[in-house]
């Protein structure tokens, strides 16, 4: 079974083919090979979403995974993140869920809820 990937490393967007013997063709540079290898073995993505707060002036606050998380865990992570209710004013980088789903990935706030001129 062969598979096709569109490389997202640069704007060129090479269409890269991988056949059943793991021969990689269609890439125009070496970075394409690395990209496809990661995609084939353990694809990861940075997840960004929001969580609820108790504050009227800022009812949702944005969060992200502090490093890419395994693609297959994204839906489970969303479920866990949606359980959170923020009850105090937090700052950028504050962890709201440490080591989500027993990974080494933390869910962190991406928006300062205190900075002047910025809510």
């Amino acid at each position, binding site marked *: 079974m062969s598979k096709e990937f*569109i490389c*997202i490393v640069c*704007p*060129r*967007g090479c269409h890269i083919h991988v056949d059943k013997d793991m021969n990689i063709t269609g890439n125009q540079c070496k970075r394409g090979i690395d990209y496809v290898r990661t995609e084939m073995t353990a694809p990861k*993505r*940075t*997840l*960004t*979403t*929001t969580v*609820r707060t108790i504050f009227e*002036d800022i*009812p*949702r606050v*944005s969060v*992200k995974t502090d490093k890419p998380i395994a*693609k297959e865990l*994204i*839906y489970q992570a*969303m479920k866990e993140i949606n359980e959170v209710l923020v009850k105090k004013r937090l700052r*950028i980088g504050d962890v709201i869920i440490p080591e989500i789903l027993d990974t080494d990935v933390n869910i962190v706030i*991406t*928006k*300062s809820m205190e*900075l*002047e*001129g*910025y*809510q």
Partner: protein
Amino acid sequence: MYEIIVIGGGASGLAAAISAKKANKKVLLIEREHSLGGILNQCIHNGFGLEVFKEEYTGPEYAYKYIEEFNDLNIDYLTDTTAMNLVKRDNIYTVSVSSVKNGLLDYECEAIIISSGCYERTRGQIIMPGDRPNGVITAGSAQRYLNINGYLVGKRVFILGSGDIGLIMARRMHLEGAEVLGVAEIMPYSNGLTRNIVQCLNDFEIPLYLSHTVTNVISDEFKRLKSIVIQAVDENFNPIEGTQKAFDVDTLLLSIGLIPDITLLDDLSVEVDPKTKSAKINQAYETSVEGLFICGNSLQVHDLVDNVSKESERAGRCAAMYLDKVIKTRKKINIVPKKNILFVTPQFIDFGWEFTDLIVSFRANKKIEKALLKISQNEKVIFQKRLFFVVPAEMETVSFPYKDLDKESDLVIELEEL
């Protein structure tokens, strides 16, 4: 009295105000929303800052970097305040602003920087047959409802237009539990960045229908959206009979383009470029009205915020230079877009401004794999560069020395296919 007033406190206005202040000017920034940061506040996805900070940030994090610096410089600003009117008399600008707190007020200054961003094209600006139900909404509005206010605007969604905001919203609504049934794009190619097609659509198996458009919108008895019909189009964008596909949806998101917001310039006789739908500028981001500068998405719609920041930082510096010296000559030549060029900025060169390099931004009007960019005067090539994978969805910027130009004849910019 202020020296410079900046209209808009998003990515563009923040960068422009910071660089003007660093040039020791008395600056006031006016923002109509409650917070600084502009559209970045609702762009919670990542991918910002790779050029400026060499790091990948989310929109709010990117804005925070600039707001911190803005606050450290103690720049004056007004939020919840809308600039309503702008006039120029005896080289002094008067900005009339309105706010709930202070009512109507006038502020005077010597130079203006417009960084008011852009707005989304709506259903009224394209031809879309059918009913006019609730549930047809622009992608950016849906993004604001979801990411700022916390409301998911629908449960079964279709998206018209493959602009980046539409693609980002496809993923976002899918992850929040909505069913995203597809994206239709009338062009044979996507208008969004390739990485967004992969990360936002392919990752979640959301189909992209190229050369397709919405040809019917059907409402239920409560004037809510019930279903839509999409159809393939031929090379003249005419729907092809027999290719209809129907989707039962409660929401149709529109991601069909952005238009610079220059409504504040209505009372000034500013020359407008029909291609960029914004004011024409010289190489100092100055419009045809002296002392009136424009940058960011209100000048030209950008793909990457990093480019907005860099451009606006330069515009802020130019506005400060305008106050420092009297420009004697106003000798101008045009930069004329020719073969395969959709638009170019600046649209003219003003020899009253002296820089070592000329920075030119442009978009191609079609996809070209290998291209030769040529900028020439009197048929003599002044600058050329090979470019790979030029697409209309990605703005290109080049810079080159230009001191020996003929001050009488226009420059021509063109893209040759190799």
